[in-house]
């Protein structure tokens, strides 16, 4: 694979910047420690806030020793439901699909362990921490409802954000009962916590009716409006800065209670206030991936063709809000079947409300679906790859629409070849390595939708031959500072080092949401269009100016490159941007652009990124310790703007697959409802030793329909496919099918 990809034809032509494996433009800031994250801000007169966390999961706070906290030296203010100022919006209301019900000290109810129940503001972090401890809350405790058995079941009106809770096509019952081979699979997935390395943090400062906040945020303008709403000020009065996000993975897209509390406190004490969550506080009010309990049934004919596929998922949510993992919907778009059913139910438990976490719905659903598919292949006696190819969906199984582009076959081929899949024995328990370890090989298919969000950008061509491009992009590690600048540079027809790229605050036009793997496509599209529009304005000037060598070329007859406009039919006639502006007596020329997708294409096509992941595990035959010794994936995700960044995202996602399969699990005490492993010692994220060899390969894909740039996302797909591949490899090593994640060493004991 060359490091530089060829630009596919079929949609807009990008210039020489996109497609380059550029290193990160923010690299120096990051390696020298000068990149500023929210908690690094220390405005003058800063006060520190710490919230007290509920020690029970359900009930009421009946007393708080506010006196003790207040009389602690350096404590400035203690905020409880008794003295909390009113908010303009009800924290228990839902103003739009991206707003969650939050805890803003509205009353003394406790809905989950770790919920904020009071806020202490002090001169120092230590004093605030001690003040919070001195509150010594007493509770009226109701029994906690933890786990699927103990929660309250209900039928959710929607899954994910506005997703369909049920789907049916064809006649499942008949298809299944007429099938030659019938399998069932039950798979549980636990609550998982995002645990970005950067804990949530906010620094809030009021100046009259104007609010300035530094807080990591994946959807800057959306958040601006929401913050403004709670405090009853116009959105323009909120300045939100989020230049660097220390990992988000979904948890920093939606406002959370502690942010509101900090802003409230800043207003009350009339000083800037900083609030940084401790790691243990990351296991309550800032969302998580909800647990699921999934059941699948698959029927096939004698040749291994799927006749019926059913995926039922129960997901847990909080007692007071709804976010349901749409796990069952992972079965709608992957494998061809004449009959498909997906159904969801939900259970309310006493935890914080779940939210989107890297590949919401898809990750959990794929983790179960791929096990079921493997079982179906086993029932037929077929190689798992051959089985998947046999059931390859040429059109979207759910809608019947053609795919905008689908290169899954190429992904299977490339990854299988790199992995050496063809040497795999069919039966489990056949392979040992030179150290006597059990070896198993498994695979999974990866899929993720390609959504887009409304996004805007501005491009300004300046007389000094540079350009300013602006959009409120969010860089949480995916490399927006770099990839977006590359696209923007091509939009304005300049080398990327002549671009000034402004991003990450509300001062720029709305870049939409950095989520759903749609940010590069959405914000990138806007930037490109803004640049093209600015260049167009410049071309209008030049071609209408008799003194320009481009005079009379007509609008469509010029090309922009390296800061010059060229006549399309005569390369020798050209003029620099600077000269055109100079003659026109203009300092600059600017234009807006917006990203989006042709609605006709949305209507007509199904749009997904695809991939295939192959896993090798090695398992100690006596101790059952599991190691993923190799994980190789190939992915097709439209046009790749920067192969380095794309591979980083994909391998990052695959490592999350390892975490999902083997480690990550939030455990709550059944009785008290308190999290038992609310730290990084107990909640295991993968370490280096867990990931000896993880490799992501890119498959060129030309998608002429997905958007003008042909870009799909790479941020989330890596986790899908990987989880199931590992579980299937464990089966292949041991003959034991997995029924719950993470795969415990205990589970392999006979």
């Amino acid at each position, binding site marked *: 694979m060359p490091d530089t990809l060829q630009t596919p034809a079929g949609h807009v032509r990008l210039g020489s910047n996109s497609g380059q494996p550029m290193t990160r433009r923010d690299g120096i800031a990051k390696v020298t420690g000068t990149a500023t994250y929210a908690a690094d801000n220390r405005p003058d007169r800063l006060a520190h806030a710490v919230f007290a966390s509920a020690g029970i999961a359900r009930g009421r706070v009946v007393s708080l020793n506010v006196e003790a906290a207040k009389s602690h030296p350096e404590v400035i203010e203690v905020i409880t439901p008794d003295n909390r100022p009113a908010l303009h919006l009800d924290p228990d209301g839902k103003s739009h699909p991206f707003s969650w019900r939050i805890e803003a000290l509205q009353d003394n109810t406790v809905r989950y362990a770790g919920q904020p129940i009071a806020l202490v503001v002090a001169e120092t972090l230590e004093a605030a921490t001690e003040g919070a401890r001195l509150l010594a809350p007493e509770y009226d405790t109701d029994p906690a409802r933890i786990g699927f058995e103990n929660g309250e079941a209900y039928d959710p009106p929607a899954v994910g954000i506005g997703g369909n809770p049920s789907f049916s096509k064809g006649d499942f019952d008949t298809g299944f009962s007429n099938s030659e081979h019938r399998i069932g699979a039950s798979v549980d997935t636990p609550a998982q916590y995002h645990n970005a390395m950067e804990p949530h943090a906010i620094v809030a400062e009021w100046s009259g009716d104007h609010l300035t906040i530094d807080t990591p945020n994946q959807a800057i303008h959306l958040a601006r409006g929401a913050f403004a709403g709670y405090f009853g000020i116009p959105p323009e009065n909120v300045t939100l800065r989020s230049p660097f996000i220390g990992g988000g993975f979904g948890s920093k897209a939606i406002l959370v209670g502690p942010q509101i509390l900090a802003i409230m406190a800043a207003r009350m004490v009339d000083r800037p206030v900083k609030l940084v969550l401790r790691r243990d506080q990351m296991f309550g009010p800032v969302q998580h991936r909800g647990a699921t309990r999934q059941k699948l049934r698959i029927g096939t004919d004698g040749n291994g063709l799927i006749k019926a596929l059913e995926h039922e998922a129960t997901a847990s949510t909080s007692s007071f809000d709804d976010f349901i993992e749409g796990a069952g919907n992972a079965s709608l778009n992957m494998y061809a079947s004449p009959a498909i059913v997906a159904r969801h139910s939900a259970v309310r438990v006493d935890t914080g409300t779940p939210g989107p976490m890297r590949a919401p719905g898809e990750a959990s659903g794929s983790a179960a679906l791929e096990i079921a598919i493997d079982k179906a292949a086993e029932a037929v006696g077929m190689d798992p790859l051959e089985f998947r190819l046999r059931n390859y969906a040429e059109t979207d199984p759910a809608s019947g629409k053609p795919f905008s582009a689908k290169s899954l076959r190429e992904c299977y081929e490339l990854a299988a070849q790199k992995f050496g899949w063809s040497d795999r024995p069919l039966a489990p328990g056949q392979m040992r390595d030179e150290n006597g370890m059990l070896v198993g090989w498994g695979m999974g298919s990866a899929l993720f939708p390609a959504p887009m969000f409304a996004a805007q950008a501005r491009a300004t061509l300046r007389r000094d031959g540079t350009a300013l491009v602006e959009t409120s992009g969010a860089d949480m590690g995916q490399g927006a500072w770099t990839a977006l600048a590359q696209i923007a540079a091509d939009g304005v027809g300049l080398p990327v080092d002549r671009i000034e790229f402004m991003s990450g605050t509300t001062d720029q036009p709305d870049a939409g949401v950095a989520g759903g793997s749609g940010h590069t496509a959405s914000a990138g599209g806007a930037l490109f269009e803004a640049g093209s529009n600015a260049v167009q304005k410049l071309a209008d000037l030049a071609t209408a100016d008799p003194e320009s060598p481009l005079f009379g070329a007509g609008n469509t007859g010029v090309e922009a490159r390296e800061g010059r406009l060229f006549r399309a039919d005569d390369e020798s006639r050209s003029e620099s941007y600077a000269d055109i502006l100079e003659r026109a007596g203009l300092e600059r020329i600017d234009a807006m652009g917006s990203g989006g997708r042709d609605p006709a294409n949305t209507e007509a096509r199904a749009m997904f990124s695809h991939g295939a992941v192959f896993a090798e595990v090695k398992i100690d035959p006596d101790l059952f310790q599991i190691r993923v010794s190799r994980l190789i994936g190939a992915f097709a995700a439209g046009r790749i703007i920067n192969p380095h960044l794309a591979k980083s995202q994909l391998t990052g996602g695959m490592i999350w697959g390892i975490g999902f399969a083997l480690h990550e699990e939030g455990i709550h005490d059944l009785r008290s409802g308190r999290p038992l492993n609310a730290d990084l010692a107990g909640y295991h994220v*993968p*370490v280096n030793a867990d990931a000896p060899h993880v490799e992501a390969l890119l498959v060129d894909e030309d998608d002429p329909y997905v958007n003008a740039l042909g870009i799909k996302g790479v941020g989330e797909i890596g986790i899908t496919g990987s989880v199931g591949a590992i579980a299937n490899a464990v089966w292949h090593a041991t003959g034991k099918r997995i029924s719950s994640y993470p795969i415990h060493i205990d589970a392999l004991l006979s």
Partner: protein
Amino acid sequence: MNITFLLNGETVELADADATTTLLDWLREERGLKGTKEGCNEGDCGACTVMVSDENGSRALNACILFLPQLNGKSLRTVEGIAAPDGRLHPVQQAMIDDHGSQCGFCTPGFIVSMATAHRNGARDFDDQLAGNLCRCTGYAPIIRATRSAADQPVPDWITDAPVTATANRFMPDSSDALAKLYEANPDATLVAGATDVGLWVTKGLRDIDPVIFLAGCSDLKQVSIDDETLRFGAMADMNTVRAAIADLHPSYAEMIRRYGSVQVRNAATIGGNIANGSPIGDNPPALIALGATLHLRKGDQRRDLPLEAFFLDYGKQDRRPGEFVEAVSFSRQTDRLKCYKISKRFDQDISAVCGCFNITVADGVVSEARIAFGGMAGIPKRATSVENALIGKPWSDDTVDTARAGFDEDFAPLSDMRASATYRLETARALLSRYFAEDRGVAGSVLEVQP
């Protein structure tokens, strides 16, 4: 306490420094050096890694569980002090940019300091050197690549600091004699060795531990002596020092320590602290008990010795009197028959679910001596006496081992917890005995080594 240290080349003198302010809080909140990040505040993530140097060399340490007085007489470099004052990048910084080792970048400062410290020490075991730094974005491979690609470049001169003299303090004794006197007079004081436990009492448990006696200045307690008869470790020997000292004599023990915490934790954690804390899951006690170690305790001028296993009375209760401290631990030179198995859920940076240590001597085909000790199987580190008895005097054979395996059920009634179930723990203990036997017999060679 009054302390003196170098911070990125500049002398810092603090008068009346609070004994339990962590370096991380001081750096970020008081000093305004915000490059060093807080990811967990309990030693698990390495985002706060700093480089601390003295006459013994440079070490990476976690600033979040390092109290200011522990810096007395040291030179400290934070991420702000890794590039040259004129802005030239350190080779590891350039390599991290070139190899895309940074995504969201939040873990990056910690990695940079770990990498620069490893680079300065000429360390080549890159995976181990970075095992204490968590990254949620990259998947580590690019970071390891960057570390490797910078390894051959010279250590930049600006990284080296001049030595500093520590400021004298009453509660920072400079010898074990001074400590003995002080502690006897202040038996209620909390001793702080490496602070990898005590640090958490403060940052997580919010405990008030005043008054505090810091042991860091007692250089005689750091001594390791090995002669023909005995190996003796001063209580303040840190885990990396212990690891190096036993690498040739008891390689399996050394390998277990490789997986103990992380570089940062091992650089701080002391063998004395790991024993004195009485933890049922400490990794040293089972190994030391299996080796037949003796614990040396001291109170004032009185010293007493006891077999290490006798020190652990019950969960949370040790045979240590007010004002008495651990001075050293020792064991006899012996032919290496020791195998240590640290079984944990995650391969690196994980507390053991079970830590089993076997030291079985065979003479003329018959088991002459057996010392088997486990962590994680009871409320204290504990010997498997029934198993030992079932082995001693018997032929070293499959049959004997099969029979002896049942002894674990008599020796231990482990609990189920997050790390493992009781069944798994017992099953593992039995499997480990069989594995020890198989390895000893050379069945499948050394093949069935516990990975990695």
